[in-house]
């Protein structure tokens, strides 16, 4: 067996690897003297030299003891050795491949005895057909939308519309492909295209279902939540893109995606609340669907009219709250 010290980049990739020398039995020194060790530090006479001003000249020593275990020893430094759990100690017994921090440097100690993860099988998902299917479905939906508006004698510009949609989708996917190329060296354009198409189709499906639900059941909430739902679908799409393009930074990116999505939902709502003391302006259902899809029972005219009474109290209330700013009319304040 052998022990290896790895110098890690912050993203987890290995920058350098130094093995603890294995000594033949003939060369074994006197028993009890631990010579199977390597030193780590800034000084050039170390086995692993660190370019880190926050490290000592001789910072740490990795010792392999007789019972084949290893330990990392602090050589009396100012910044010491800090474990992944943010604990500082003079001596760490190596149990796992969790990294240690020496100054600003990350190292990891591994043993060749430790079991490795299974060989991962290649993805069997047929990316190209899937991407093409998604792409075609998106174009089909675009064509459907254009066709729905084709109600005059003069037809709309189908080719410009569809061309623009296709170009937009490809540019979007290409952007993530380029991003992936920069970070992992692999473009995976068609995977990104599949993700983008799926996101588009899922968003369309969800929005249409919400509209249909609103009409069918005469519920207002489905049309009120459309904006956050769009943000969520977009965030999920971006999540898959980023995870594919740059899996190594995913831990950090994940937080970014969550934060951005949360803000994209909360900020418009908060601003609306500040400006208008309510979360949404959607008060009626705009869409008209096929009569057969209506499930809600119509109310009688009297019932509807009676329910409209509540509007009066609401506008009167609004009138009271902002009556005072009415005087600002007429542009006089510009002169004052």
């Amino acid at each position, binding site marked *: 067996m052998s022990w290896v010290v790895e110098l890690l980049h912050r993203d987890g990739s290995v920058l350098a690897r130094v093995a603890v020398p294995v000594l033949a039995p003939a060369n074994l020194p006197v028993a009890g003297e631990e010579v199977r060790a390597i030193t780590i530090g800034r000084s050039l006479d170390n086995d692993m030299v660190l370019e880190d001003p926050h490290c000592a000249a001789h910072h740490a020593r990795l010792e392999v003891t007789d019972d084949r275990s290893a330990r990392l020893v602090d050589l009396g430094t100012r910044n010491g050795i800090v474990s992944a759990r943010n604990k500082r100690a003079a001596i760490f017994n190596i149990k796992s491949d969790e990294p240690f921090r020496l100054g600003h440097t990350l190292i990891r100690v591994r043993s060749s005895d430790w079991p490795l993860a299974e060989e991962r099988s290649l993805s069997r998902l047929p990316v190209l057909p899937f991407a093409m299917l998604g792409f075609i479905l998106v174009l089909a939906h675009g064509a459907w939308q254009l066709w729905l508006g084709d109600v*005059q004698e003069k037809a709309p510009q189908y080719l410009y519309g569809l061309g623009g949609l296709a170009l937009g989708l490809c540019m979007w996917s290409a952007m993530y492909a380029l991003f992936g190329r920069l970070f992992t060296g692999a473009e995976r354009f068609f995977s990104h295209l599949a993700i983008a198409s799926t996101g588009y189709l899922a968003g369309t499906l969800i929005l249409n279902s919400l509209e249909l639900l609103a009409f069918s059941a005469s519920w207002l909430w489905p049309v009120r939540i459309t904006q956050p739902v769009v943000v969520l679908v977009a965030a999920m799409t971006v999540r898959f893109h980023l995870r594919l393009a740059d899996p190594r930074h995913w831990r950090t990116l994940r937080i970014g995606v969550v934060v951005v999505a949360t803000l994209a939902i909360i900020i418009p709502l908060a601003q609306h609340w500040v400006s*208008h003391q309510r979360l949404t302006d959607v008060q009626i259902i*705009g869409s008209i669907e*096929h009569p057969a899809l209506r499930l809600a029972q119509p109310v009688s005219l009297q019932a509807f009219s009676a329910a409209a009474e509540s509007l009066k109290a609401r506008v009167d209330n609004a009138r009271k709250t902002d009556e005072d700013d009415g005087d600002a009319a007429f*542009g006089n304040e510009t002169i004052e």
Partner: protein
Amino acid sequence: MTGLPRLSASIPISSLPTSVNMTPTQRTIFACLIFCIAHLLPAHAQSVDKGASSDAAAKAAQAPLPTPSASARDLFSRYKDRLVQVRVLLNSANEQSSLGSGFVVRDDGPKGVWLVTNYHVVASLAINPDKFRIELRPTSERAVKATLVAVDVIHDLAVLRAEPVVGTASWPAFDLRETALVQGERVFSLGNPLELGFLISEGIYNGPVESRIYEQMLFSGALNSGMSGGPSIDDAGRVVGVNVATRRGGQLLSFLVPVRYTRELLERACQAPPRKEWRTEIARQLIAHQNFVAGKLLSAVHAAPTIETAASSKAPSKPVGSKASADVEGVVSAARAGFASQTIAGRVVPTLDGSLTKCWAGGRDGERLRYQRDTLDCSLRSELFIRQNLQTGYLNIRHMLLRNDKLATPQFLALGAVGRTASSYMQLGTTEMTRAECRDDFVRGTAHIYRVAICLKAYKKFEGIYDFTVTATQTDDARERMISTLSMHGISFENGRRLSDMFLERLQ
């Protein structure tokens, strides 16, 4: 909707300030003020004012007034001392914000001098009394301070009281004519248009104006911006009316308020205690106005059931008349309004009828649709001028019938998004109005099921009046859709609700 005239055909003729000799600083402030006002105006009103001023300016510059007849010269020299220019000044800038004319009707010596002008000349002061003040400029060029003592929003009149000036001779006053005029009589209109100086303009009285809810006189003579509030006098120098409006684009189509409303307002003004706050009074008059308008519509229906004719498309059925109620004074006796039924492409819909309402049918020209679209717009032209950017007290009905000709069903259904009438209910609040509060539901009508949306807005400055919009969209037929909208401006909640109920009941 192209081809429809503006709701308000006539425009008030008080002028926005034109250029005067000013210091550069004043000019800057002034330009700003003009800009601010113009900025606040709705697009159509802006174009009207600009058009009117430029027209008038062009007229004044190019075509000199015809040589005054002997009596006009005589009348002008005899009565010009009784005229004033009414200037509403902005306190903060000490400059004029609106101009008009006025005339002296009574001199009570130490109690002050009573003058009459138009409400719309002093509207900004009535709405914001602390920000403006009134200054009168008689022909003698001395400036006199004045206060507002009474307003009549409905007839667009206001009474001012000038501070008595010690040591000056009493102001001569106009007599008000008691007897009615006969069509064809000569009338002379006096005022100070566009700050060009006082003038007299000769014309002919052409009878009461039809299609006005409140009585106005048609004057075939020139009225221009700035002559608002000036008197119109007969041969004997007695006031017969007050200059109020002119028709843009018309030739010598001007409007006067009959003098009897001036007399009534003066009587009220003399008894009224002095007040500084006018919004409640304006609100009270607005409520009286909408009660009157709504009463016409409501009583018409109760008086007689609607006669529905199976007449050819777009032919109006026999109107359902309404008696002009006697409790509101100053109503043109023939003025009628009411709900009527009309057919639009074979479907019977409620519309407005009567001499006060105008209906227009049709579609957009030059548009080639693969479905059938018929529209019918009716408006009850009873709007009142409240302030520069606010006219209210009128109502509109709009029907749009969509029928599928050659479209696939999904295409026709998707028209819902574009086919619905412009949604005023999404608007946020303005300086005049609160934001809209709406609700909608499926409602079972007599023959169809509608998606009905009601939106309500309140006027911030006037309590108890609202804007109501009711939109009913038929949702029970995949090949035909009727979209009907009733919008009521400046109406009380009770009347709005009653009218909207009535409108929805009558949707077939």
